[in-house]
């Protein structure tokens, strides 16, 4: 603001807040919005945690099952590798490889990683993306 634009009388008028007859309603409406937003955020985070937990538990049970079945099959002398898990790993590796190809990173060979490592790396990335999405969503609400 330049000196000739400074006018104490105008400044005083701007500094004085008008009074609103519905101030109480405004404050009540704001408090209600604050409560709703907080409740929604708590619910969204709880649901995200629950979903994440269920997925994690399911994966752990899956791994145990496959390990158990591989142990059984190994003892029977038929299948030497945990098939279910390695298949999932291979699928994830293929998906990731095609994504890298599309991004022009064909030189990066995902098949060099073990199937299980690839599966968990992909799962980790997906969980991180999901968590980032939830956090972003909760900040916007």
């Amino acid at each position, binding site marked *: *603001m330049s000196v*000739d634009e400074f006018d104490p009388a*105008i400044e005083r*008028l701007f500094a004085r807040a*008008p009074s*609103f007859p519905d*101030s109480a309603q*405004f404050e009540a409406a*704001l*408090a209600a919005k604050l409560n709703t937003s907080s409740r929604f955020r708590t619910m969204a985070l709880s649901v995200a945690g629950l979903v994440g937990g269920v997925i994690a538990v399911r994966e752990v049970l899956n791994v145990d099952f496959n390990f158990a079945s591989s142990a059984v099959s190994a003892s029977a002398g038929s299948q030497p590798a945990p098939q279910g898990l390695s298949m999932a790993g291979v699928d994830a590796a293929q998906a990731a490889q095609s994504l890298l190809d599309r991004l022009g990173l064909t030189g990066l060979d995902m098949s060099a990683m073990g199937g299980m490592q690839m599966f968990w790396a992909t799962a980790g990335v997906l969980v991180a993306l999901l968590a980032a999405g939830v956090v972003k969503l909760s900040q916007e609400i």
Partner: protein
Amino acid sequence: MAKPLRDLHDVELAALSAAGGRREFGELVRRHSPAVRGLLRRMGAQAALADDVAQDAFLLAFEKCAEFRGEGTFGAWIKRIAARLYLKRRSKDARYVAEIENDEVAPSVDSAGRMDLDEAMKGLTEPERLCVSLCHGAGLSHPEIAAAINLPLGTVKSHVKRGLDKLRARLQSAPVAHGSASHVG
């Protein structure tokens, strides 16, 4: 014994709000909402939109209370948040295009021939009103206003100067309604 909320300074209330204190934030709302609502109306927002944006500004302020460190006043901080939110909302709202074309409106005076600032502001064109209220109401500098509303700096300065000249002329021609008996509905 804890001090009553009304005895706490804004900075203390903001710090308590940042820790999740709803009652403390409610006190800040009670203290500053009239100024924020008034500013948004002076910027040209209709009453319902002004209140909506003011509520959003306070919700955002509650989220970001930890960022308020008391360098300026809480009132100035929340007014800047509200002004920027309104500008963002306005730029999204195509209806504003019709509004900005509006020419100045003759301000009205009360039965005693007095005029308050809000009435006098009605006599400004929309860009003048916006620039003057952003400058004197929200405390934005001319370059900040230019960046916020995407106008050349020189144009912003002209709007502010012309707007202030008109305000002075209008307020001098009619005695100012002091004491803010100006109940805004």
